[in-house]
């Protein structure tokens, strides 16, 4: 199998979510002395981008997205290990601390966003659900995060996004981190009201927003 065939197979397997073969294909690519960064950039990222687009167009559903993300991760783990060994620096798109705010245990939307961000090359620190203001801020400081992404699914927990932003100001780090908000009842108007830097209505747009915020 030529390296081009391996890359093509990897692309197809990520696209179809066939995660049994991707680790083996990544190992084959390494045996062929291919630059692992090239495999990531030419196979994995285009494939997962297309998966994200298909998800946005409702051609793919969550199980498809999860299987594709899993297929990609299995290959990525092997390729990243090789990158670490070789000393090549993989440029991160940025570091994002993400979580569902305190009082809210809804996880699905937040996890989809986290998966897509990771797939697009962001370093994602997923704090899970029911995350307090202190936990968000401590992690932003400790991990030197570029972006804070907060999700809220309940109308009663939406205001907590604003509370965290106020805490960021009090602790003097509001200008050090971009803040994006989302969640089913969250709107652009709410985002502006609480002083967030951006709002996204779905996971695909959240990734685009994160990319945009990193350029600002």
């Amino acid at each position, binding site marked *: 199998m030529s390296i081009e065939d391996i890359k093509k197979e990897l692309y197809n397997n990520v696209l179809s979510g066939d995660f049994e073969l991707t680790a083996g294909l990544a190992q084959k690519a390494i045996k062929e002395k291919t630059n692992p960064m090239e495999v990531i950039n030419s196979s994995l990222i285009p494939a997962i981008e297309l998966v994200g687009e298909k998800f946005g167009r*409702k051609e793919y*559903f*969550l*199980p*498809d997205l*999860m*299987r594709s993300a899993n297929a990609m991760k299995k290959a990525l783990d092997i390729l990243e290990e090789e990158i670490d060994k070789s000393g090549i620096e993989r440029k991160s798109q940025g570091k994002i601390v993400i979580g569902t705010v305190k*009082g*809210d*245990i*809804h*996880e*699905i939307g937040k*996890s989809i966003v986290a998966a897509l961000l990771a797939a697009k090359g962001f370093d994602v620190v997923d704090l899970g*659900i*029911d995350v307090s203001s202190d936990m968000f801020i401590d992690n932003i400081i400790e991990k030197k995060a570029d972006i804070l992404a907060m999700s809220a699914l*309940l*109308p*009663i*927990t939406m205001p907590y996004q604003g509370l965290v932003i106020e805490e960021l100001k009090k602790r003097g780090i509001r200008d050090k981190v971009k803040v994006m908000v989302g969640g*089913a*009842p969250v709107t652009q108007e709410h985002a502006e009201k609480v002083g967030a830097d951006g709002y996204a*209505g*779905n996971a695909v747009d959240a990734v685009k927003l994160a990319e945009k915020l990193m350029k600002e």
Partner: protein
Amino acid sequence: MENSKELMIMTLNLQKTSRIPVALHWWGVYKYEALGLDYRKDAWKEGEKLSDVYTEFYEKFKPDWFHLHIGTPKYFKDSEIINKNGKSYLKISDKFRSLKKEDKYFSSNSSDDEEIMDFPDYLLGSRCSKPKIDLSSVKKIDDFIKKYIHMSVQEIIEMGYTDHIPKIVSRYGDDVFLAVHIPSAICEIFDPTTGYLGFEQGLMSFFDYPKEMRYFLKRCYEEQLEWAKAYAKAGVHSFIISESYISPDLASPEIYRRFMKDVHKEYFKEIKNHGLIPICMFWGDSVPLLNDYIETNVMAIMFEESKKGFNLDIQKIRESADNRICIFGNLDSIYLLREGNEEEIKNEVARQAKGSRYNFIIANGSPVTPDTPEQNVKCLISTGRELKWH
């Protein structure tokens, strides 16, 4: 002129009535707030006292039904909320600890301490962590169900889960429609934090263990029929389940058709056989599966309001349903009921009802949320009560 019970039953059976019923639903936390109670303390009253909360709330707003929830186990009596390591827990009274051990609905929680239960103070404790299932064989599934899920009708009643119902039945059973609404078996399986599989594992299991997953789903719904039977025995008229997590926008229409449709058909048929009217709240974008849902023997469908990713126009849905099934309205609980004014509510109620022909019940989409002005709820109900069929 029909009373509320007759009105609801006739509408659910697509029969001509004198007016459109109004069924405010998911009274949830709001019922405590509207009565000036603190749900963190008052939600834990024993069943009989809970029935007083329902009664007072009903008398305040007078919708056409009682929207009841799963109830309260007897061992919550005299419990107290304690704080431990920064988290809230429900401390069970010593005298009821042995009873708690026999309960499979709430008791399989994650706490290491037998005396206390997880008590997320925003959720009324409805999401105590469940043990995780191994789907690798039918035997393991059967053993799991026996150990962690099965409760007979008698056990459910003895545990106190129907204690909130008798007083309501005796006072209102002939005049007002009484419905119990509980999470479906899917919710118990797929809840991301507490489910038997969790959300991600649940979705992956459709691919990794298709045969076993189908069996597990079928068995879980069979087990849930025990709950329907218990509520039927207590005297309610309808059994509602909420279907979430495998909606077409999340799991795909195909997964529903392959794994759930037949299970639902059998399940709703059985609910009817036990004398209850089966109603289902299908969360998410229900439009792609509307015809499939109609074919499941369910008698009415409830919808949430439109969300950012999908549009649920109740008039179009009713048109597509073509008088084959009763459709509940989906007035926006947040941006209309909580934040709108009376004029907007009147207009939207009228818009949703326009063109309906004996197959429609005026209702909100999501649960009524805290801080919803009482006059808005009253406006919804009074406007609805004045509307005639088109």
